[in-house]
């Protein structure tokens, strides 16, 4: 992909240091990976989440915070093992449960999922579809010129997200256990 577009440097704190580059997926609500993401498919399976069905594999996940279950560390480690994990996770608040999953995967399998905490107002300036590059504490954001994200029209708001569904009562698709 061409990396022309507006570039911006964000400085965060690496909870798990690493390198990653790819498209941003901005979560509109907190997510518990356990009960919320199927590590076999990389898809969101939380029926209360507005982005039910979205795929996190191959994306840089931008989330306000984790939520709920303390088993999410196992789910992250398992998704790293299976190759369905996000490329990296950017957070507004430190999340020990995710750090554990990333650390244990690194120890067991020699690969991980970088985790970076950004200053609280920064995640809201990232839109789904922005290109993000993670190098340790530094995150470079490139907003493509050709296909403006929602953030271009309405700065500061998360952009549209693929596969979202606003209906928490929607019957499940393939993302069932």
């Amino acid at each position: 992909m061409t990396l022309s577009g507006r570039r911006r440097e964000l400085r965060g704190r690496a909870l798990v240091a690493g390198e990653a580059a790819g498209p941003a997926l901005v979560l509109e609500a907190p997510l518990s990976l356990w009960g919320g993401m199927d590590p076999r498919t990389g898809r969101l399976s939380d029926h209360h989440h507005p982005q039910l069905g979205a795929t996190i594999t191959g994306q840089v996940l931008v989330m306000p915070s984790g939520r709920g279950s303390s088993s999410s560390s196992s789910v992250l480690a398992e998704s790293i093992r299976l190759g369905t994990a996000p490329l990296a996770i950017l957070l507004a608040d430190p999340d020990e449960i995710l750090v554990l999953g990333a650390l244990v995967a690194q120890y067991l399998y020699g690969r991980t999922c970088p985790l970076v905490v950004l200053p609280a107002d920064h995640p809201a300036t990232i839109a789904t579809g922005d290109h993000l590059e993670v190098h340790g504490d530094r995150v470079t954001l490139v907003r493509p010129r050709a296909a403006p994200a929602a953030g271009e029209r309405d700065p500061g708001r998360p952009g549209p997200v693929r596969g979202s569904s606003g209906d928490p009562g929607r019957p499940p698709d393939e993302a069932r256990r």
Partner: protein
Amino acid sequence: MRLSDGDRALLDGAEGPAGRLAMRIVVEMARVAGAARLIDVTSAHIDGCLYHGRAGLDFAERLLRDGAAVRVPTTLNVASLDLLHPDRFRGDPETAAAARRLMDAYVAMGCRQTWTCAPYQLPERPGFGEHVAWAESNAIVFANSVLGARTARYGDFIDICAAITGRVPDAGLHRTERRRGQLVFDVRALPDRLLDQDVLYPLLGHLVGARSGRLVPVVDGLPAGVDEDRLKAAGAAAASSGEVGLVHVVGSTPEAPTLAEALHHGQPLEVVEVTPAMVRAARDQLTTAGAREGRLTGVNVGTPHFSVAEFGRLVALLGGRSVHPEVAFYASTSRHVLARIEALGWPATLEAAGVRLVVDTCTYVTSILEDTSGVVMTSSAKWAWYAPGNLGVRVVLGSLRECVESAVEGRVVGDDAFWAAP
């Protein structure tokens, strides 16, 4: 960060590679949390024994092979299998075998075979002010709120590392200043007929958790002395819809004799007036759209694990009647509580009425339900929250009375007069 000589010895491998790895993980967590030191814990509760895939098994077996053993009394959370009723498991044999290996690994490290998400129902439980390392979100909120013990929100992997080292970061809810109530939920606008009902508590927990996120909520205006089963239901719900690890309930939980004390004599960020409409909205959020009109195929209670008192209520509500033949009624509990109700003769009564008892596990975390095509009713907000994603079922949340009446009738029976707007 200041480490003790013992911490450093473990890091240096004085007790072998498992101790070194466990201490490395504890120290790394302390760094993330910004802790200045580690502190001792008196017990641990392990959530990592529930099988989520090979990563968890690889970790446990690596620790075991490297010589890991727990150094504080350690209880185990629910696992994926009911070892007392193995035929209840309907998943594939490979998953069952891996889940069993995971359970065996934790037992081999010296953990007690409690297999319950409600370790606070066991005879030995932590006292006020005691530092513990508990995982499982409902157990965490109960330990902090109801027992006044202190645990951060631990999860898989760190739980066993804390048990092996006996040490945790001095951070989060271990620290007094982090236990200050921040958000007040005033329930004085709720009518007494609602306050008298068990079903209020999971719904209240659900709406409190959803609005609290990571803040410490305080519930004010409930009658004093709310019982442990109601506090359990509220806490489990709050820890599912939010990242709640401590809920002060004024007049009922030990750090909240008064609202001022729950707030550490400070000001709350916000006071939320809880209305009957908010409680009805919580119930509706925990019920799949259209499910009330669907075909009822199951009822599930006991999430978190049913207590002796809750079994007593179930027996009384059934009143000698039987569950409809087309409804599978499951009640999940621990083997400890099962032994206690056996002394009362209740398991035989319940099984004869068509209630199937599940121990060591829980019906929303593993393959037990045989029919997930219809509608399943539950009295648990936590079950209602997670089961649609985990199992693909449609759910209806109701009171235990509504669950029992529905199970007997074979269709969803709601107490419409009770739920009508005042």
